[in-house]
C-alpha cells in the first residue's frame, strides 16, 4: 500500500489520498471476506468491498456505473446472498470447516498471480497518467447503449430473463 501512497504525484492530492484510503479499506475487507469464519460476516465484509468499488468508480469519473453498482450489488446481490445464507441454514456466528483441507494451496497460486500481474502492470503502465476529465455524461452512455450496443443490450436483457426463469425453475420446491 505504501508503495501506492508514495507513487502519488503532486497534483490532485485529495484524489490520491481518497483512493489510497478506500483501496486500503477494500483490501482489508476483501481479505476478511475470504478468511472469516462467519458466513454472514463474510457477506457484510463483501458489502464493504463493493461499496469501495463504487467509490473508486466515482473517483474514476464513472458515476452511472457507480450508482448501478450500488443498486445492483449492495441492493440486490447482497440481499440474494443473505437469503441464500439463511435458506441454507448457516448458523449465525462462528462456523468451522468453511475452508477446504487444501486451502493453503490457494496462497501460492494467488501470490503467483499477484506477482505476475503486478510485474506486468507496472512494466506496461509505469507512469501513465490518467487524464483529469470531468465525469462522462450519462447520455453518452445511453447513446452507446441504444446505438451500437443495442443488440448486446437486448441480448443481455434476455440473459437476465433467462437467469430469472432459470433461478425460479431451479429453486422451486418440487
Amino acid at each position, binding site marked *: 500500500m505504501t508503495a501506492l501512497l508514495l507513487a502519488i504525484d503532486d497534483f490532485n492530492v485529495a484524489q490520491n489520498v481518497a483512493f489510497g484510503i478506500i483501496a486500503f479499506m477494500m483490501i482489508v475487507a476483501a481479505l476478511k471476506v475470504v478468511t472469516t469464519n462467519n458466513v454472514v460476516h463474510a457477506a457484510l465484509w463483501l458489502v464493504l468491498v463493493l461499496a469501495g468499488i463504487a467509490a473508486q468508480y466515482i473517483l474514476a469519473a464513472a458515476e452511472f456505473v457507480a450508482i448501478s453498482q450500488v443498486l445492483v450489488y449492495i441492493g440486490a446481490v447482497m440481499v440474494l446472498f443473505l437469503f441464500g445464507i439463511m435458506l441454507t441454514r448457516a448458523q449465525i456466528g462462528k462456523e468451522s470447516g468453511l475452508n477446504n483441507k487444501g486451502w493453503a494451496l490457494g496462497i501460492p497460486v494467488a501470490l503467483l498471480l499477484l506477482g505476475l500481474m503486478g510485474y506486468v502492470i507496472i512494466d506496461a503502465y509505469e507512469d501513465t497518467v490518467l487524464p483529469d476529465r470531468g465525469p*462522462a455524461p450519462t447520455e453518452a452512455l445511453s447513446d452507446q447503449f441504444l446505438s451500437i450496443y443495442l443488440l448486446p443490450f437486448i441480448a443481455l436483457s434476455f440473459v437476465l430473463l433467462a437467469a430469472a426463469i432459470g433461478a425460479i425453475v431451479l429453486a422451486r420446491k418440487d
Partner: protein
Amino acid sequence: MLVVNFLLLAAVLFCIGVYGVIARRNAVLVLMSIELILNSVNLNLIAFSLMHGSVDGQVFALYVIAVAAAEVGVGLAMVLMIYRNRRSIALDELSEMKG
C-alpha cells in the same frame, strides 16, 4: 493520478478472489469470491475507459454487472437445490466430477 493504482488494486482484489475460490469450502463463499473477481475486472474496465476517454469501458462494466447479477441468481438457486438434495453445500462433498 496514475492508472497503475487502479490496476494494482484490481489485481490485488482479483488474487484475493482467486484465493477465496480455491480455499473456501462453502458454496456461498465461493460465489462471493467470484463476485470479488468480477468486480476487480470491472475496476480495470473503468480505469481503462477513463484512460482512453471512451465510455465503452463503462458500457462493458455495466454488462458485467448485469451478467454478474444473473450469475449470482442462478448460482444461488443451484446452491439451494444442492442443499435441498443433500443437506449440505460443502463443495468437496460434491464429487460427481471425479474421473
